[in-house]
């Protein structure tokens, strides 16, 4: 081929520069999200105001007052405590359960694949509707779960309507809905692990617990991190299930952040306090996700380095 024929292949007309291309590709996604960033900042402004919709004349900047008042507000500390407790319990239990189920289903077989799809059904049930389902099932009269509880001697088990069991009940619903999410991610992880280390360990007669803690878990860590991140941050913001089941009650048992903020906005129309609550929630999630993602990126680099 001569220089002339190469010449013919030369690009003609408009051409996207290599340097511009990645920006061009990510710009639309970025723009769509930036549009959503503007209302975010509006909320930040609200959070620094004394702002009740029912008293528009009294609206003014009070700077940090909304935040400062949280320090002495037992309701706020209760909210913080309940939110963290709820998120902690659900994530830990779902992780353990999800990992266990994923290991049960690890082997590829038609039955296992079928079961794993079936187990996804709770995830496909909208949390708002799932809460409704569980409300029906825990009805003290005709609710089947109350009936079953009474059969095993738990007469009068009050599920979500008693402060001592309300948390347990919503956690149960959360587990029911979201364990499949963790299960499917970890199952995917387990099935993509290389087989050699396990075969080698089996040949050497290494104890199973050793294999699990020293081989399986470390190799699964990136998956566990991803799953935990998504769940933890969703869970600390839980709204649908709790609101549909108890509206934050009984008493103040379940007034987690989003429920409290929702009630503050829609019932009390106290926009300033509502916004401040959510900014704090956002700060918590941002902080947590930052930690997770830093670790996740480091793990990934390491995994890439080995490959």
């Amino acid at each position: 081929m001569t220089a002339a024929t190469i010449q013919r292949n030369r690009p003609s007309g408009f051409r996207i520069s290599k340097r511009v291309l990645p920006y061009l590709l990510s710009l639309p996604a970025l723009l769509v999200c930036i549009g959503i960033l503007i209302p975010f900042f509006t909320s930040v402004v609200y959070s620094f105001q004394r702002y009740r919709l029912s008293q528009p004349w009294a609206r003014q900047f009070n700077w940090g007052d909304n935040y400062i008042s949280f320090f002495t507000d037992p309701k706020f500390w209760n909210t913080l405590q309940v939110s963290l407790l709820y998120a902690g319990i659900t994530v830990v239990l779902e992780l353990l359960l999800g990992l266990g189920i994923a290991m049960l289903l690890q082997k590829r077989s038609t039955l296992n694949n079928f079961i794993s799809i079936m187990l996804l059904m709770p995830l496909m049930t909208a949390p708002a509707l799932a809460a409704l389902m569980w409300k029906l099932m825990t009805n003290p009269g005709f609710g089947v779960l109350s009936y079953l509880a009474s059969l095993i001697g738990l007469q009068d088990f009050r599920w979500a309507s008693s402060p001592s069991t309300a948390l347990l009940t919503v956690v149960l619903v959360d587990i029911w809905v979201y364990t499949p999410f963790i299960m499917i991610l970890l199952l995917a992880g387990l099935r993509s692990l290389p087989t050699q280390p396990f075969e080698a360990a089996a040949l050497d007669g290494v104890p199973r617990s050793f294999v699990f803690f020293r081989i399986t878990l470390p190799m699964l860590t990136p998956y566990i991190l991803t799953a935990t991140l998504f769940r933890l941050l969703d869970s600390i913001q839980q709204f649908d299930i709790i609101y549909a089941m108890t509206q934050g009650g009984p008493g103040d048992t379940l007034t987690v952040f989003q429920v409290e903020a929702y009630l503050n906005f829609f019932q009390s129309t106290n926009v300033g306090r509502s916004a401040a609550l959510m900014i704090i929630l956002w700060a918590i999630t941002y902080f947590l996700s930052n930690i997770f993602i830093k670790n996740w990126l480091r793990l990934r680099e390491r995994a890439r380095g080995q490959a």
Partner: protein
Amino acid sequence: MASLELRNIVKRYKSQTVLDNLSLTVADGETLVLFGPSGAGKTVLLRLVAGVIDPDEGKILIGGEDMTDLDAEFRGVGMAFQNFALFPHMTAFDNIATPLQAKHSSQGTIKTGVESVAKLLKIGHVLSHKPRALSNGQKQRTALARALVGSPPLLLLDDPLRNVDAKLRFEMRLELPRLLADRGATVIYVTQDYKEAMALGDRIAVMSQGVVKQLGTPEQIYREPANVEIARLFGDPTINLLDVKPSRDAKGIYVGLSNVQVHLAGAHEAAVGRDCVIGLRPEALAFVDEGTPGAIPVTVEAETPLNEKIVTLARTVRGREILVSRPSGTPGQSEGRAHIAVDSKSALLFDRASGERIGSKNVVNLRSGEAA
């Protein structure tokens, strides 16, 4: 066809400089082998030429034309990857056909083109298979076929034999030179195997840490390696390296090996009185009878037949190990005391501190990449 010229190429990744002000010219139709250890920057260089990564500085000219800012698809080169880089979701046929499809060739042309190159590479019977159904050898040939099928004027082959078994590598090493010669293309061939380099290269560029340490014909590289490192890389078994301090007497320049004065032929004046390393190719040593002038007494410790030659491990009286190689079937000694002699013309002297060869005739101007 196309010549290739690289001018003052610099490539950095983060703070690390991978290619440092590298310049290189490859003539039209020439096969240049890039040789060097991993991390030397060979693959990066190849990708720069292919256009899939951009240099930070410098220019790339193909066929005399500046292609530095041109994307890969406009450069008209063919490339085969070390890991084959086959498209896993396409059949071997479709894999090979991609360069022809890019040219919008007709179905007929594509079919003929693919089948003829497949026949040449003896993979005509697996064209309908997907890569995962191919053996390593077949994968390698498919990758090669894909690089060749468009008859590119410039072929970039990135260690194509690296991931195939020894037998196949041996076969291909024999086949490839003819194949490449037939295409008449300019070829840049990356390898870590010195035999491949010797067998295929019109010239070899030895790279290390982002610079070309030596550029020359295989003969030059072997006979007159620029430094100890290159001397060690070329040759199997590896070159014997012994610390010496050359002196001069009436008969000329000599070194002391096991209390025997061995006189060297050639221009080694510069080495006199310096701490040096002498490089003796195993095949430049031969067993001799006791009493032959310059015979060095050794103890034979082991003998290994290696294909067409026999390699003997011996130990000098000072306890230094030395390898001797001789063609199979020639007489030698397999145990006990023996004497060896040095082919004084082929002895190489290197400066012990810098590793540079002393008294070279063809000192390479490394900066410009041109042989002096």
